[in-house]
């Protein structure tokens, strides 16, 4: 039986390598047919911001990879509402992530679920495996 895996992303995309190496685990883990979801909390919400430009810091901009998560059947992406608000961000500042539902003639559906801190706590409680980055 599939386990519920959740990847909790807590750090800004650059400055440390945690965000990039978390994404590498998610992509590899997608091959294991588990029930996968991602959460972005704290500075982790910056990982999904639109229009990232890393030229000036001489690092690879890996943010386009998030838009491919739907193709890896990663379709549940939780964003903590308070974390956005505390940083003066709204969902409009984030990439629009979608997946195609093959059971509904490949209808495009939103992957992002905006949840409160309390709601996210309930989602965490349901998980079998929490990987925190």
């Amino acid at each position, binding site marked *: 039986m599939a386990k519920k895996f959740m990847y909790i992303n807590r750090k800004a995309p650059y400055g440390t390598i945690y965000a990039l190496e978390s994404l590498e685990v998610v992509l590899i*883990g997608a091959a294991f047919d588990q029930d996968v979801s991602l959460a972005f909390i704290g500075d982790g919400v910056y990982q999904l911001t639109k229009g990232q430009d890393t030229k000036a810091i001489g690092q690879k901009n890996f943010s386009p990879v998030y838009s491919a998560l739907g193709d890896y059947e990663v379709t549940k992406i939780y964003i903590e509402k308070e974390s956005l608000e505390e940083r003066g961000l709204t969902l409009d500042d984030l990439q629009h992530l979608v997946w195609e539902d093959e059971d509904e003639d490949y209808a495009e559906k939103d992957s992002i679920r905006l949840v409160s801190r309390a709601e996210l706590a309930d989602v965490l409680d349901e998980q079998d495996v929490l*990987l925190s980055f």
Partner: protein
Amino acid sequence: MKFALQINEGPYQHQAADSAIQFTKAALAKGHEIFRVFFYHDGVNNATRLAIPPQDDRNITQEWVKLQKEHNLDLVVCIAAAQRRGLIDEDEMNRQGKDANNISEGFRISGLGQLIEAGIEADRLIVFGA
């Protein structure tokens, strides 16, 4: 209970490596099973055999080696994280044309799938550091 451990930080710099060793000892002493220890991020540096900590300090790599021998632990170093940071075994040294290798006995290098498998197989996956 069957535990798997993920270690995300390097030795001496961060408490995570020490806590993981202490957790492992305590769990084994209580009769629990350690399914696998997976070293990721800077945690891969716990596997170098070339570290020379001061003589009056603990030797974290050697502590892992000792535990591995006593309990036949599966100590796995993430290959992607290790290559980035210059941690390589003899096979990788030859494959990549490098002039040295530094992985200690008792550790093996493998892929991230080993971490996911550990999450699936273990009753609990415990993350140390980050």
